[in-house]
């Protein structure tokens, strides 16, 4: 799927909407020099969004909201604590995303639960948290799935 340089509303057959621009003061690991990204929801698909750099629109990733509808309070608390600890930022009103890629050989989508992308809605600032503990357990505890 090729992105960028195209009309933001339409990317090769994937319609997006609700585009927001978020500042990432530390960039993203692997892309430390890119400080500003657009995040757009995929139309009719509440789980996935598209993250792409405003400076280099070809650099893009699929990100995913927490797959469990009732995201635990514990999860939010942990994320807020980490943001405060690393970035000194206020963590109220955060959106949590996980970076996704396709594992071709096994036809699976892999989400990275140990490095969530966190967006602070009030100030439109984002960070990628590198956690010592990965959140899959926390999320799954909440969804009663084992």
């Amino acid at each position: 799927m090729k992105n960028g340089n195209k009309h933001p509303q339409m990317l090769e057959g994937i319609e997006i909407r609700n585009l927001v621009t978020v500042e990432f003061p530390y960039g993203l690991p692997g892309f430390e020099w890119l400080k500003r990204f657009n995040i757009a929801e995929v139309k009719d698909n509440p789980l996935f969004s598209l993250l792409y750099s405003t400076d280099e629109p070809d650099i893009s990733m699929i990100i995913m909201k927490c797959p469990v509808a009732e995201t635990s309070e514990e999860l939010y608390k942990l994320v807020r604590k980490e943001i405060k600890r690393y970035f000194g930022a206020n963590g109220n009103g955060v959106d949590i995303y996980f970076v996704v890629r396709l594992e071709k050989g096994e036809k699976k989508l892999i989400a990275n639960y140990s490095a969530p992308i966190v967006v602070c809605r009030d100030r439109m600032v984002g960070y990628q948290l590198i956690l010592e503990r990965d959140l899959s357990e926390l999320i799954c505890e909440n969804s009663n799935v084992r």
Partner: protein
Amino acid sequence: MRVTQSIITRTLLQSLNSTKESLREKQTSIATGKRIEKPSSDPINFSKADKFRRKIEQNEGFLQNVESSLGWVENTMSIIDSIYEKILRVKEIAVQGADNTLDEEGRRILSEEVDSIINDIVSLGNSSYLGKYVFAGTSTKGEKPFTYDGYSVVYNGNGEKLFRRVGENYSVVINVSGEQLRATNVFTVLTDLKNALDNNNPEEVADLIARIDQVGDNLLNLNSSVGSIQKQLELIKNRLETANMNLASYLSSAEDVDLAEAITQYNVEETAFKAALSITSNAIQLNLFSFLE
């Protein structure tokens, strides 16, 4: 313009040819799963993708270095820890030896124990990790770094640093050299203690107790500085792993034909979805394709 036979044939042939061309490219991309089949398919994105692929490989090289460095460092810490444990026993010996009620024979026995502990510590100082001496600086092979002739401990290694590359312009020093170990005074204090016990001199022994404490502290400090290297390495490791996952995700969205298909065809049905969740550490695998079928 009059339409002649050859015009019709020619135009038809041309449109047939261009359809065939685009079909071939589509087919190849599905077979390989990658959209950038060769540089001319998409020169600009090829250039970017190639750079990022190389970056992932470089990072993997760094990650390997981090892993092996962590192994070395953790091994070093556990050895220093063992030495510290011995110092705790040495303090007890010193306290006993300083006791005026102890006789010469008693001190002689303690002296023997100290001698044996010195040998143990020298042995620890001569530890190997993966065939290399841990505390020899860069003199990692050949003669043992420490020798003890019963009177003093001699260090034969050097004080050079072992560097490991963990980032483009970034190295870490992973070793504690024998000189640093010697600088804790562990050997001088212990040989002094042995002498004092051999001399049957309780005051001398008593004076050494404070120094023994100091050696303990020095060892703890040494270990904690190694511990901070360990922490640093862990952070670097996490960052490299996250970077590589981000890079892989970018490459996936730039090159994998099926990703868009997977995303757009996905239909949210919560119960069915939860059933499809399976967990492994660091990642959740969504069996979307089996779920879609």
